[in-house]
């Protein structure tokens, strides 16, 4: 039995999943409407270009549709989709080439200025907030591009978004201790990469 669009909005996740499993596209569209932003959020932790994020999100929903028969409603649909999204993006990223080491000479003028201002504690005076955020996000992406997909995942979730270790473990299917160890190593690798950038660009504390 198909539900009217208004009824679909009121339907529970489990009901939507049941209808979608039976081939009801409207029910599946409602699932996408509800959890599209969540899936996009996960995908945008791994990819920055809109086209890549959309491609990843599309793949997540196509996989989700295929795997719907395995969803038994024991956990939340959002959690189930988040897990599919995390693993799909992780696999996509693993198939891509990693950026070689980023050196200070490769930094853009804005990125160098951001680092300089950040270390001088005067970033607020140098750029408007929006622009400052963009430059920092650009630089973050370049630094994260050197990291392994697993490092990138834990850094963005645990350090960038304060996601609890337990939640990251649920998203990835890893044990909590694996998440902690991965985060410890990833944090050190990122810190060392940034330290090199600061040292080579002559913007470490000695110069300020």
């Amino acid at each position: 039995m198909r539900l009217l669009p208004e009824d679909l909005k009121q339907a529970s996740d489990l009901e939507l999943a049941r209808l979608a499993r039976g081939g009801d596209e409207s029910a599946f569209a409602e699932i996408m409407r509800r959890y599209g932003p969540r899936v996009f959020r996960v995908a945008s932790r791994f990819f920055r270009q809109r086209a890549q994020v959309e491609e990843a999100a599309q793949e997540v929903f196509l996989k989700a549709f295929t795997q719907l028969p395995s969803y038994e409603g024991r956990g939340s649909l959002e959690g189930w989709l988040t897990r599919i999204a995390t693993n799909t993006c992780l696999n996509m990223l693993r198939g891509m080439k990693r950026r070689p080491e980023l050196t200070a000479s490769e930094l853009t003028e804005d990125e160098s200025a951001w680092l300089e201002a950040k270390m001088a504690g005067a970033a607020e005076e140098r750029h408007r907030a929006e622009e400052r955020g963009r430059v920092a996000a650009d630089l973050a992406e370049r630094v994260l591009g050197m990291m392994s997909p697993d490092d990138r995942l834990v850094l963005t979730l645990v350090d960038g978004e304060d996601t609890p270790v337990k939640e990251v473990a649920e998203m990835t299917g890893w044990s909590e201790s694996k998440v902690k160890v991965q985060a410890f190593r990833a944090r050190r690798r990122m810190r060392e990469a940034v330290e090199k950038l600061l040292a080579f660009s002559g913007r470490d504390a000695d110069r300020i």
Partner: protein
Amino acid sequence: MKQEHVTAILDDTPLGQLGEGELAAVRAHAAGCDECRRAYDAALVASSLLRERAAEELEPSPFFQTRVLAALRERRAVEETPPLLRLWRTAGALVSSMAATVALLAGLTFVVPSVQTTTETTDEVAAASDPFSVDAAMLAQDNAADEEINYEQVLTTIYESDGGNE
């Protein structure tokens, strides 16, 4: 804490999640230790970078759902096609192109030479059937021209040979 480096603390916990006491201890140690000060500065920058990156938001475009549903239909259509038909669809183009190539080669081998022979004789046949046609007139002219040349050539040959004798 004064004697111990603080890099392990920096690696163990995100900077933003360190308590006030821990942070104060890290700062105190970093103030007197170059290595840890560099590590602390880098951790500070790394933390800012990650937070700025995490703050970026990307919403699905209005056409996202439509695109996914279209891709879904396409995928289902492929999956619902019987395997043999799918194989034929995949290999069909190859088989058809091979058959076309064979037919073309056969045509080039057996048909084209006879077409050339036919083309050569067609004009003569047409001319014979209609003696007043343009083709017939041109053929007659060609034959006449051939005969005149032949006759002149004969005469020239005779005169030259006579002159030579005299």
